[in-house]
Structures are given as C-alpha cells and as structure tokens.
C-alpha cells in the first residue's frame, strides 16, 4: 500500500515514511493561520495521487474551498464529475445545493450517519477525508458525547483505511478535551502565530503524543498565492 503525503514540501520531508492510509491527523490552529489552505494542499495531493477526497465544510460554504482550489488551477468540476471530489455542506443548514448536506449541525449522530453513507458509497477506493472544522460541529455538544463520538468514529475510520484530517480551531474547545482528543490521533499538527505583534510569523509543529508528551518538530511557514504553503527549514524539536 503506498504511503500518503500532505503535498507540502518541507512538511513531507519530515515524514520519511509518509502517512499510512488509515491514519488520522489532528490539525489545530488559530483563526487565519492557514488551516484551510493546508486542507487544500492535502486535497490537491490526494487528487493527483488518484485518491477520492471528501471535504466537509463546517466553517464556510463548500464554494469557498472550490474557489480556493480553482485559484490554484485545480479543475474541481472534473474531479466532482468523476466522483473523486465530494463536498459536504455542514454550514448552510437546509439552504444548500450540494448533493450531501448536514441538516442538523448540532446532532453528531446525524453527522456520523451521513459520513458513514458517503464512505460506504466510496467503498474500495483510497479515501482522504477532511473535516474543516470538527470543532465547529462540537461547539454545543457535551464533552462526554464528544469523546464517545470521537472514539467510535476514529476507530471506524482507522478500520476502513481512511486517511482523515480533522481540523480544530484553537480556543473553541476546552483544553482538557483537546488533550484527550489528541491521544486518539496518529499525528498532531499545530499551527500558530509567533513573533512580535508587528511582525508575526506563521509556525507549525508536527508530531505525536508519546508518553503524555507532544514530541514535534517546529517549522516556520508562509502562504504563497502560487505555491500554497511554503515551509522553511526545521527550527528544532519541542517537547
């Protein structure tokens, strides 16, 4: 089975063996840091590799990701027609033209059922699933229910060999919940602004939780309108 990559040079360089299909990635970052851009890179890479990519749009209508991909000259229509790019509208609640939409944004059972239905329809294919952002779906849900949903869902995704990227906006969910959730993922990618207020720098850390510690490598990055995310050299290891 081939390994997968993010499609971001610099980040991929650090993943010597790549990502296994069936892995789950937690992306956590501040608003405006570039989480959706990273999701776009992940999808672009998937489409080039022949994967079927599913994008669940929770924070903006699916059109925003379509236009984002088109701005990078990715012909989304061709992939959508071939059934290799699927958008799920989890934003507009009932006023959507998308084939797949979540009618009740506060009901995790309904989300789980919809995700199951879509994944079943793609059976036998290599799948990348991006939920942007999962934290939005969890906003008004009880912590115990979230963890329960998390465990069941991730177990199912792992078993089905789905390569999933779940995006979380920093500060939306309780820190304790985020820490516990982090243990369920194979990789954690944290994105944040650093540096001074007048000269902010974008930073990302990719790593794993090992023995209650987040072991990661840290990189500065920028966002180019042509190349997408550009990662600079590694800036050391944080523990």
């Amino acid at each position: 089975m081939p390994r997968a990559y993010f499609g971001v040079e610099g980040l991929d360089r650090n993943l010597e063996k790549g990502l296994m299909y069936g892995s789950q990635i937690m992306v956590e970052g501040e608003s405006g840091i570039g989480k959706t851009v990273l999701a776009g890179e992940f999808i672009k890479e998937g489409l080039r590799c022949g994967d079927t990519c599913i994008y669940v749009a929770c924070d903006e209508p699916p059109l925003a990701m379509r236009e984002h991909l088109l701005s990078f000259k990715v012909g989304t229509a061709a992939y959508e027609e071939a059934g290799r790019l699927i958008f799920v509208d989890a934003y507009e609640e009932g006023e959507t033209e998308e084939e797949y939409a979540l009618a009740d944004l506060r009901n995790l059972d309904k989300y789980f059922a919809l995700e199951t239905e879509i994944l079943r329809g793609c059976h036998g294919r290599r799948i990348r699933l991006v939920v942007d952002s999962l934290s939005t779906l969890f906003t008004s849900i009880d912590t115990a229910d979230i963890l329960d949903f998390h465990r069941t869902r991730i177990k199912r995704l792992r078993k089905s060999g789905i390569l999933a990227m779940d995006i979380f906006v920093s500060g939306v969910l309780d820190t304790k919940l985020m820490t516990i959730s982090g243990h369920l993922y194979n990789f954690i990618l944290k994105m944040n602004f650093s540096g001074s207020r007048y000269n902010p720098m974008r930073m990302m850390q990719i790593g794993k939780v090992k023995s209650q510690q987040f072991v990661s490598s840290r990189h500065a990055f920028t966002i180019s309108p042509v190349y997408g995310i550009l990662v600079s050299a590694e800036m050391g290891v944080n523990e």
Partner: protein
Amino acid sequence: MKVNEFTRRLINYMQMSMCKTMKQLPFSGSHWLEQFMMSTAQYVLDERLDELHFDSKKPSEACRTFLNLMDEEGFLQARDYRLEDSGESLLVQVERDNCVYRDYCMRAPKEGLPLYCARLSSFQAVLRHVLDKDFSALMETDERGICRGMLFPATRPKEEIVTREGHILKVAGRRAILLPQETYASLFMSIKEHAPHALKHVLYDAGFRSALNLARKTRILYSDPEECLQLLLEVIKNDGLGNVELVSFNQSEGRARIICYDSFQVSVANEYGSLYRSPQVTCDLLRGIFAAYFSVLLDQEIICEEMSCQSVKGNYCEFLTMPLPNNLWKEEPRGGKD
C-alpha cells in the same frame, strides 16, 4: 523520350524507396519528401526555361504549359489531365491508369508508406515558379480509379520543420536544440533538489508558455477551432511528447477529453525515477500545453487536469479541459514573444 515499361517501374521504385526512407526520418519527413519531388520538377523547369512560356498567371494555364512540355517528351499525355481554376485553387483530375506513378500510388498504402502525388508536387513547383507562392496539395482517388487533386495557397505554419545550417539547428527557422531524455531528466531532477515546491508549477507553466505562441499563430490561420486543434495536436506528436488523440471536444462548454499514449514524461519517470514522493500523475508539461491551446482557441482561460496517467497504472494518460470561472480569471503577463 518515351517511357518504356522498365523506365516506368524504375521511376515507381524510386518513389517507393524515397517514401520508405522519409518515413524513417525523425523529423519533417513529409516536408522533405514534398521538397524532393518539387525539386525534381524545378530541375526540369530550370533546364527548359527557354522553351516554357508562362504567359498566364492562371494556375491551370501555367500547369498546362508544363504538361505540354512533358507530353512533347513522351513522358505523359497532357490531354489525360483535366485542370480547372477554382478561385485561387487549382483542381486536377486524371485517371490513375493513365498516370506514370500508378504503381507507386497503389503499392504505397499497402506497404504503410505515405502517399504523395508526384504530379501535384510538380505542379506545386510550377506554381511557385510562376506565381512565387507556396501551394499545399490534397489528393484522393475514388473506387473507379479517378484521382482528384486540389492545390491551394499554403496556410499551414511549418512549425515542425527542422533544418541544419552548418552547426546551427533550427526548428521553424528559429534556433533549436535537441534535448535527450537524460538532459531533460537532469534539468528537472535539479529543480526537484533545489525548489521541489515549484516543480509542478514549473512544468505546467513551461508547457503553457511554450504552447501559447504556436497556438496564437495557428489560430490566425485556421478559423475552425477543431481543425486548428487537430493541427496543434499533430505538433505534439511530431515533437515526440506523446501520441495524443482528441476524444471529444465541446466548444460551447470549453470541455475536451484528450488521451495520450507513451507520454515522454512517463518515459522519463520510468527511466529516471519519479519527480514526486508518492505515485501520481506526472504529465504536467502536457497539461500546460493543452491549457494554452484551448485558452487560445476558445479565448478564455482554460485549465487542464490529468485524470489518469500511464505512470500510475493507466493504459494511457487522460486529460480533461474546462474553463476557469470568470471571477477567477486573472490576466497574467505570461507567454512567449508574439
């Protein structure tokens, strides 16, 4: 001179062997064959110029003068040929059995050789001599063995024509180099090492820019986009980038499906290793070329996706083109010299 049976056979064998040789040339075989045949007629014209009186600028009359000379020499019978002017074009008709090149004409297709009517080529030489104009030729033979040909003012850009002047190699009159696979692979392996993030963009953009100029020139000459496209796709084949076929083309929607067998980039990936970490579509140069072709043909920005690739399991590479929505269409200052 009377053409006896042996002389006739000899002439036909010469035609056959020229076609056989030209077929093996890597570049511009058909152009050189045409030149070969025209040049033969030019020798006759030069030799007998004093006797030939081209009083009229009408293509039919100029060619009739030439036919009469050949008739006097016993090479053919001028009355067998029907010549008729049609605007700037010349229509020619002859029964194949009355043509000295009959054997070649019948054998060449059976042996998979290109067929070029030597008689029309001689008329091309005459018309160039008399009218100082290049003419293109078309010929077809019906089931009754009647050959119908047409000579019309040449419009095709001779982009594929490779020439050598001393140590200078030229394509379409402009200096060129022959790039072996190894050099190409080294170039892109080097970009992979120094700027891996730019690789796909470099290939796509290089394809786009390099194709724009030719597409624009060809578009001026051909009003029908499909005809223009077929010619452009032929250039890709001639350049050795792959054996491309247009599967479908919907002009109003800006959609087309093209397949390519034996893409050059797939061959490079197979021999020198993939440019990318994971197995994926690799023909970004062709993607860029198609995007440029269709953007010029349809006068709107067209993007192109490679949906499957021979480098990853596919039997061929498949490309789909589609328009970029207007709100995302940014005019960029790209493209070669006009």
